[in-house]
């Protein structure tokens, strides 16, 4: 049955339980790849995707098609869960550094040369914008809703993120040319 995500969501709100499974199959991969590119942590990414769908089940009636797409709604939930998780982890790290799971803050030499390294080195606020815009093809208005920031801020962060990525990615190329 070919339905749009919004139609599946409406069906789920109307009590069609299997519609949730369709939504999960539709957005499991985009949500996971967004969280993974942001955190580079497989466990956190899986947890966030699962928590997102738990939250969707609890707050399913809060969604309204007039307020935006299901995709933006799910990304918004996932982003908030991820930020809360990361903040909680930072607190744990400062209080009990030996109990908090290790993060991948350090970069290998190979990493520095790759786009993965360049994206991970971006400040968190810039990283979210570029990931949502480039990899998930979300319009800037929806990005502003997901991140809960003004549209102008999205535009400026996107511009700065592109500049920073260009600097990071261009350097190895220049070095290659000079060799």
């Amino acid at each position: 049955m070919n339905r749009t995500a919004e139609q599946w969501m409406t069906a789920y709100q109307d009590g069609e339980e299997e519609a949730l499974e369709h939504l999960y199959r539709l957005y499991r991969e985009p949500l996971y790849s967004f969280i993974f590119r942001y955190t580079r942590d497989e466990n956190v990414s899986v947890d966030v995707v699962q928590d997102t769908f738990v939250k969707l089940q609890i707050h399913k009636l809060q969604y309204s098609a007039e307020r935006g797409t299901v995709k933006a709604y799910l990304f918004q939930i996932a982003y908030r869960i991820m930020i809360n998780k990361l903040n909680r982890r930072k607190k744990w790290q400062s209080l009990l550094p030996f109990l908090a799971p290790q993060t991948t803050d350090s970069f290998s030499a190979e990493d520095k040369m790759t786009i993965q390294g360049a994206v991970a080195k971006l400040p968190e606020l810039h990283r979210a914008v570029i990931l949502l815009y480039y990899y998930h093809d979300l319009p800037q208005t929806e990005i502003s809703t997901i991140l809960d920031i003004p549209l102008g801020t999205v535009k400026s962060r996107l511009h700065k993120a592109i500049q920073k990525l260009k600097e990071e990615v261009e350097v190895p190329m220049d070095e290659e040319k000079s060799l």
Partner: protein
Amino acid sequence: MKKNPYDPNEHLKSKLDQYKVDIPEFEMKRSRTDRWVHYLASPTKNPFDPLFDTMRTWTLAKVIPVVLSAGVACLQAFLM
């Protein structure tokens, strides 16, 4: 039409395209026990790492327990 700032930046675009993510298989729900097990199994930072940064601190970390136990042994012998 959506304005795309990447058009003049084909090199950056091609680099961004190279960033692929392997997505593992996982269910929509995971039990709390499974989460706890994953948490326990995740690697953590060794609190003694800063101690082993230099050769000198590494040597001290090895010598101090030996000196302390020798000291305690001497003290016990002296008290007997």
